[in-house]
């Protein structure tokens, strides 16, 4: 059984000019121990999906429909208090920028201890010992001496390791990682990704990895969901989505990854821009930018349907294969 089931999730923002639907019928699931990648352009709703799952949508945004089922229990209708007991304990989160995720005036050890003691009955001494253990596990050298050092005494990469320790120390079953490597330089990115992968495997943690870096996805994930304008365009095992995409948008995304072998004058891109939330076209949201558009795409909204290797929301996904 899936650890997390998101069923037909809709998130809306009421504004003066009407209701904006930022997520529209998003459905996916994550199995225990699985790493699901979520990709898409800025504003496609990747981060919002994560925020909705942990119940931290910024008001006035709210879940307007659908269900979020975690470990057999619905999350979307829990009270703030009930949700607070689940956050951190069962679902952890890692944010983009390690420079700002840590409280600058609290030592990293204290932050770890606070997190663990919020959710588990631990004596101060045990909590400290586990804090040191966690710092060691995420690869902080001389962890026992640095446990009470402050965030500014660590480098960016080290800080992101601390953030990962912070997200994992209450041993959650699911971690939502929102662009965890974007703020880091490339060599550190690889280390952090490897670390997250190892820790997820060691502790059997599922990860929802939000990113716009296809390289990170290909390296890390078991399955990947491609989002466009608040909807899922394609979802499937990472190999299949990367190698043989069935949705024109996924194809475009893959095509825009520069190749090291082929020398080209211009980098490939998808023409146009993602529609604004108040002007999502009728039918398929991607139709104005799509090279394979047919009349039906402009009238009717495609649903996710199985293709040969993935699930894609495209009327023409299967005729390609046929």
């Amino acid at each position, binding site marked *: 059984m899936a650890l997390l089931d998101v069923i037909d999730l809709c998130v809306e923002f009421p504004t003066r000019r009407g209701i904006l639907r930022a997520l529209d019928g998003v459905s996916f699931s994550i199995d225990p121990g699985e790493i699901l990648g979520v990709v898409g352009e800025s504003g496609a709703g990747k981060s919002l999906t994560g925020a909705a799952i942990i119940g*931290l949508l910024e008001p006035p945004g709210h879940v307007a429909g659908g269900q979020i089922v975690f470990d057999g229990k619905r999350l979307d209708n829990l009270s703030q208090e009930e949700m607070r007991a689940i956050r*951190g304990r069962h679902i952890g989160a890692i944010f983009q920028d390690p420079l700002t995720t*840590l409280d600058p005036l*609290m030592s990293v050890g204290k932050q770890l201890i*606070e997190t663990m003691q919020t959710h588990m009955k631990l004596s101060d001494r045990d909590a400290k010992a586990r804090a040191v253990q966690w710092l060691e596990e995420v690869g902080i050298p001389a962890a026992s001496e640095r446990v009470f050092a402050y965030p500014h005494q660590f480098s960016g990469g080290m800080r992101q390791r601390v953030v990962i320790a912070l997200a994992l120390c209450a041993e959650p079953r699911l971690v939502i990682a929102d662009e965890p490597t974007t703020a880091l330089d490339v060599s550190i990115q690889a280390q952090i990704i490897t670390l997250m992968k190892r820790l997820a495997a060691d502790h059997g943690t599922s990860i929802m990895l939000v990113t716009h870096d296809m390289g990170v996805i290909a390296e890390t994930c078991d399955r990947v969901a491609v989002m466009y304008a608040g909807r899922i365009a394609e979802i499937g095992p990472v190999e299949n989505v990367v190698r043989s995409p069935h949705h024109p948008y996924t194809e475009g995304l893959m095509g825009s990854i520069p190749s090291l072998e082929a020398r080209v004058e211009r980098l490939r891109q998808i023409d146009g821009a993602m529609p604004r939330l108040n002007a999502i076209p009728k039918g398929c949201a991607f139709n104005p930018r799509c090279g394979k558009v047919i009349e039906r795409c402009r009238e009717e909204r495609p649903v996710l349907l199985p293709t040969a290797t993935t699930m894609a929301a495209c009327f023409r996904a299967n005729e390609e294969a046929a």
Partner: protein
Amino acid sequence: MNALQRFLDSDFIYSFKRNPVAMVSFGVVVLVVLAAVLAPWIAPHNPFDLASLNLLDSLKPPFFQTDGDPSFPLGTDDQGRDVLSGIMYGTRISLEVAILAIGFSLTVGISVGLIAGYVGGSVDAVLMRIVDVQLTFPAILVALLVDGVVRAVLPPSAQEALQLDVIVFAIGISRWPQFARTVRGSTMIERGRDYVMAARVIGISSPRIMATHILPNVLGPVLVIATLNLGLAVLDEATLSFLGVGLPPTEPSLGTLIRFGNDFLFSGEWWITIFPGATLAVMVLSINLLGDWLRDALNPRLR
């Protein structure tokens, strides 16, 4: 040891050492505070001890004038009380009132500011309108009003016993809105930061986030304002005492001393009011200069 060394090497101390005004002000403040705190042990006389007063010593001028008596360096008042000792004891009371009042202001202001800034919405609106309304009245007027109301409500016996508490409350209640505003502003900035979001993700409760994560991060500017307000609170107390609604004459603060001395100013006994007045002025000036420096030193953009 290590922490002390780090503190001595910090930018903060560096900036202090390069700023003569800050160093002099700090010296003056330390001197005044020491003299006040140690008054019962180092003051030459005890102005509260009626038995030691001798009317023959009354209205002596300071030592540098021809009739001066070296045992009363700054002269005496009409009851034969030593002006220097009076100032030391008076400063003690003035500082006590000011520190307690600002402590009270800080507690109320910080709590209101944190809640308004963190919770936001209608709670914020209501709390800030209260602040706005209070800020339309001068602080001293609020203090006078509170003082008057409390005195009217309390029975005379309780008034006697609670005089100090009443004036602390009156000054404290008149100064909290500033703190509340500052804390609210900083809190609104901090609550949008990722580390607060991270704390919420971890599942830490809102009161705990406010107390352990946001409060330390908003405290800097508040402490600067608190320092500046400490000087103003000393003046508030002096003003209230000068107007005769402050502390009783049996426990003279600097303001009380100035008020008494004022009556003798035109008959030539200038020292009774000028010395306490000068002490008050120098002390408040030093506290303000120190506060100014602190504001600059703690503001990274002004470095």
